[in-house]
């Protein structure tokens, strides 16, 4: 009960923040009621998905300071669990999703235990390595369709199927992922003031100090890694039902892992709003740049060049991201 209360307790934010967040929440709730293009809808769903990915990354990467560049492997585990169970045994999403989370968390414990003996760069590269190993294994595993991947053919089901999450209209998907989005915000809000949240921030700031205060550093990191995994895996399952076509390269590739980390970094790692801001900036930018520039003949890749320049500028000039800039401005005004 106490933890539930703390999840709804936003009182330590300035009033301005809460009112802006409230306005955005209301906008997100009513957005589909206005007329919109299918493209805008797809972009909004992508934005919400990546916000939840980013929130998950933020628990371990932002609050914990452990740069994880292998989150896509858990997207893959979630997506494949849901898709395989649905295709082979017709098991609905709401059962396969928790199962996917359990599998992903089990895998995260198995590799998390050796992984967290590493620090800094070594840890980051090792997470990439594990993710690529898993992707390669899925690309040759016939049971999950090898490199071709799996396809959920929607013809077999009656629309709208809430149990299996097979819809014709994107608006249903939008509200499902919006639900996950709000639950995610509430969870992270509770997390950042929980015992584990404080332990993790002390680990980020000074690991030796944290362990001398009696914190079990290794275990705290593994636990948080599993939490981050759960977030990512849930959206992975959603991804399987929404995209309906999953391939190892798309769902488990390095690009996705990087994008997840990048979003949280750009917005501001280690703050509640950071990943959401990052996703809100990068996802529309990415899809509109691609639509405007990528489509033109002979300009393939120019969207990603612009994208890369933004990453480089942010990391060189303001490593704490957009939220860091906001806080800097605020501090200046108070003085």
């Amino acid at each position, binding site marked *: 009960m106490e933890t539930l209360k703390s999840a709804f307790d936003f009182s330590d934010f300035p009033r301005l923040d809460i009112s802006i967040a409230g306005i955005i929440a209301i906008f997100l709730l009513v957005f589909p009621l206005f007329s919109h293009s299918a493209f805008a809808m797809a972009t909004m769903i992508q934005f919400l998905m990546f916000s939840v990915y980013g929130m998950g990354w933020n628990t371990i*990467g932002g609050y914990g*300071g452990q*740069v994880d*560049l292998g989150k896509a492997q858990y997207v893959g585990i979630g997506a494949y669990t849901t898709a395989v169970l649905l295709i082979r045994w017709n098991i609905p999403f709401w059962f396969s999703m928790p199962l996917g989370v359990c599998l992903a968390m089990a895998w995260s414990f198995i590799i998390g235990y*050796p*992984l967290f*003996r*590493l620090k*800094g*760069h*070594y840890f*980051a*590269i*090792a997470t*990439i*390595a*594990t993710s*690529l*190993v898993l992707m*390669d*294994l899925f*690309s*040759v595993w016939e049971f999950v369709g090898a*490199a071709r991947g799996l396809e959920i053919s929607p013809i077999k089901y009656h629309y709208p199927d809430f149990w299996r999450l097979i819809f014709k209209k994107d608006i249903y998907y939008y509200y499902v992922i919006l639900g996950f989005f709000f639950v995610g915000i509430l969870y992270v809000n509770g997390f950042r003031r929980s015992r584990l949240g404080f332990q993790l921030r002390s680990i980020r700031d000074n690991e030796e100090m944290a362990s001398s205060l009696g914190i079990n550093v290794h275990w705290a990191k593994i636990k948080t890694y599993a939490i981050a995994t759960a977030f990512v895996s849930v959206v992975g399952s959603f991804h399987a039902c929404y995209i309906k076509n999953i391939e190892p390269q798309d769902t488990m590739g*390095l690009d996705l892992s*990087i994008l997840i*980390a*990048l979003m949280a*970094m750009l917005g501001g*790692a280690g703050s509640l709003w950071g990943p959401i801001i990052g996703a809100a900036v990068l996802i529309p930018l990415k899809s509109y740049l691609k639509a405007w520039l990528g489509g033109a003949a002979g*300009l*393939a*890749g*120019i969207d*990603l*060049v612009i*994208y*890369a*320049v*933004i*990453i*480089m500028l942010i*990391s*060189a*000039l303001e*490593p704490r991201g957009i939220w860091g800039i906001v806080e800097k401005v605020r501090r200046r005004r108070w003085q």
Partner: protein
Amino acid sequence: MDILIGSLVAGVLIGMILALVALGLTIIFGVMDIVNFAHGEFLMIGMYTGLLTAQATGIDPLLTLPVAAMVGFLLGVICYYGFIKYLVRGPMVAQLLGTFGLMLFLRNLALLIFGSEDQALHRGILIGKSFDLGMGVIVPATKLAAALLSVIAFLAIWLLMNRTKTGKALTATALNARGARYMGIPTDRMNALAWGIGGASVTMAGALLVNFWSVNPFVGILFTMIAFAIVALGGFGSVPGAFFAGLVVGMIMEIPGIWDFLTYALNWDWMANVPMTSLKYTFVYLAYFIIMVLRPRGLFGWKR
């Protein structure tokens, strides 16, 4: 037996080139404590440099090495002064993602300029020729020449690092940057030099590799991961470590060939059904993970 020896020879030859690929990464890491994710993209640029120089001037692709070295040196120095210098002020998270940004930038710039098609060399003195080592082992001449040249380049850089004053200054910067600054070593210029040498060595490896490996803009990430595995095995910052680890990783990449030999020798049916060739690089990633977990310092590492 000939399959086994053939695989081992191929492993050694590719390993010599991979050692040169990893050398740049280990120098940069040793001097600056920064992991360059764009390393494979430097290699890709080296490959394009070799290819385009050979095609434009009509000289043999193996002779494009100096051009590639020049391009790589300039690329490294420009990257340092234009970007990395500002990046190292920030926390580690920002450094990681910053070099990732550099990787994306170079890769997609190459995509924009060269297009996404595979390109390969077709003309050259050695292309299409091969040596017969006896016992049915045939070595393509390009691979052999590339491996030998890469060993020569490796030795040259090793001499530069160990036998010249500049090399000593570089080592001093690597050991203790602040101390080196007090001794009057311009550490900023040394960092730039490390990036230049690192870039030059990897683009040379690229120009050698393009003799028998087709190039496209996405080739980089594979070699980045291979280089990480080599550097992890050899020890971050260790130059001789990079060489021996390169050979080992070359062998690891030939595991499918060895597997073929075992399948043939043991005559077990289930072994033939394992899709080993698609798992070729998986072993490299796995090797990185296992090495890092079991022995984080690597075989020859001196830096923690």
